[in-house]
């Protein structure tokens, strides 16, 4: 069965510094990979996805993610973090008619 791992529970970063949220995946065949963000008391919002093509995927709010097949990773990145980026981030992989989500990473951007 497909699965993702988000190894860090929380990521702390200073405002203006680069932000990276890590995700590794396990799936049979070509992966469809997704990142979502959840702000407090809100539903999950779609950020970006990788289906095929360029390994660097650009998404909403200045986020991008790099697909690395050899390392089975799909890390989320932002060159310069904002305080408003503080939220819960979920990685997901598609398979068997559903998405398998990671446990989420709490990102805290420190002013």
């Amino acid at each position, binding site marked *: 069965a497909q699965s993702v791992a988000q190894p860090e529970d929380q990521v702390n970063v200073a405002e203006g510094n680069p932000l990276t949220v890590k995700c590794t995946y396990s799936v049979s065949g070509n992966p469809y990979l*997704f990142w979502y963000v959840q702000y407090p008391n809100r*539903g*999950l*919002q779609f950020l970006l996805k990788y289906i095929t093509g360029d390994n660097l995927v650009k998404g909403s709010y200045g986020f991008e993610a790099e697909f690395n097949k050899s390392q089975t990773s799909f890390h989320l990145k932002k060159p310069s973090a904002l305080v408003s980026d503080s939220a819960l981030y979920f990685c997901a992989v598609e398979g068997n*008619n*559903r998405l398998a989500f990671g*446990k989420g990473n709490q990102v805290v951007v420190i002013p």
Partner: protein
Amino acid sequence: DAGITQSPRYKITETGRQVTLMCHQTWSHSYMFWYRQDLGHGLRLIYYSAAADITDKGEVPDGYVVSRSKTENFPLTLESATRSQTSVYFCASSDRLAGRQETQYFGPGTRLLVL
């Protein structure tokens, strides 16, 4: 233009009572999903539906019942609520393209407290 809505947004109930959470989407997406979100567990799939009258179990289906008589609605019923079902419940919908799941879009969630 509502997209996907859930009702109620907040619910307090007592152990043993039946509770129904509603989900409605306006996109005519074929797939709909119910998740629960709990600290330390992330999102766990309860049930999903590929089309009207087609439903299937997810990771944690026990104690829940779903139905889908219309494409746009996917209610989730807790037949006899237990304290362990206190959680935040999210509904989502998506389409399928070339045999693969497309992006899922989520509702705002229902916070359920079972006393």
